[in-house]
């Protein structure tokens, strides 16, 4: 942890699922980034987007094509999709990239909406 250039990367990180209630508790906090890997038109046609979530495809996550904020590997990344499987794949890719704290939302944004939380289109 000594170097000033330490970006917080973690080896052998693993992604784990969280409930919608847990995700809601993390939402809006500094250092927590929500990511939805679905195409924008698919999001608009279905659940809408969790406010503040960044739209990054699974392919871009797996290729490391990420916005500058993700240079900080100590960020807490929470992924979501319509129901969970694609979010899990994206979360696994973030963990493999060295992010030490990665979760996906069980049930995805569908569960988020069913819990009464807002989305945007």
């Amino acid at each position, binding site marked *: *942890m*000594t*170097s*000033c*250039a*330490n*970006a*917080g990367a973690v080896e052998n990180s693993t992604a784990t699922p969280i409930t919608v209630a847990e995700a809601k508790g993390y*939402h*809006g*906090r*500094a*250092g927590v980034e929500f990511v939805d890997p679905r195409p924008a038109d698919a999001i608009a046609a279905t659940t809408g987007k969790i*406010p*503040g979530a960044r739209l990054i495809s699974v392919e871009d996550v797996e290729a490391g094509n990420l*916005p*500058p*904020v*993700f*240079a*900080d590997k*100590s*960020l807490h990344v929470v992924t979501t999709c319509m129901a969970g499987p694609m979010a899990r794949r994206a979360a696994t890719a973030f963990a493999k990239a060295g992010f030490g704290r990665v979760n996906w939302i069980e049930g995805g944004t569908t569960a988020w909406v069913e819990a009464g939380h807002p989305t*945007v289109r």
Partner: protein
Amino acid sequence: MENAKKLAIVVSRGLDDERATVAFTIANTGIASGQQVTMFMVSSAVDVVRKGAADNVRMNPFDPPMKELIENFQNGGGRILVCPPCAKVRGYEESDFIDGVQVVGSPALHAQILDGASTLSF
């Protein structure tokens, strides 16, 4: 919170300087105004977030105690980062800091700036 504004505050003042309190007061106001606030503690400011160090500190009688300011900041969604060399030179490990504090280098700060964060320094 769609497109919430971000604020990054670099703090270098320790518990012998009132500006350490002012930094947390302004950080809490930032959260209250809807911003996502990250504090990056460097140099003497590292001591402010060491476990127990701020428990009995009230640097200005017209401000809340430091412990309360820090708790309010974290409970409100604020994030506290500590400069790794600044911790190392003082003999501190990550476990020496209060819960939630992350020891991580300047790439984390620059990532916030590149993401559009406003900056303040104390």
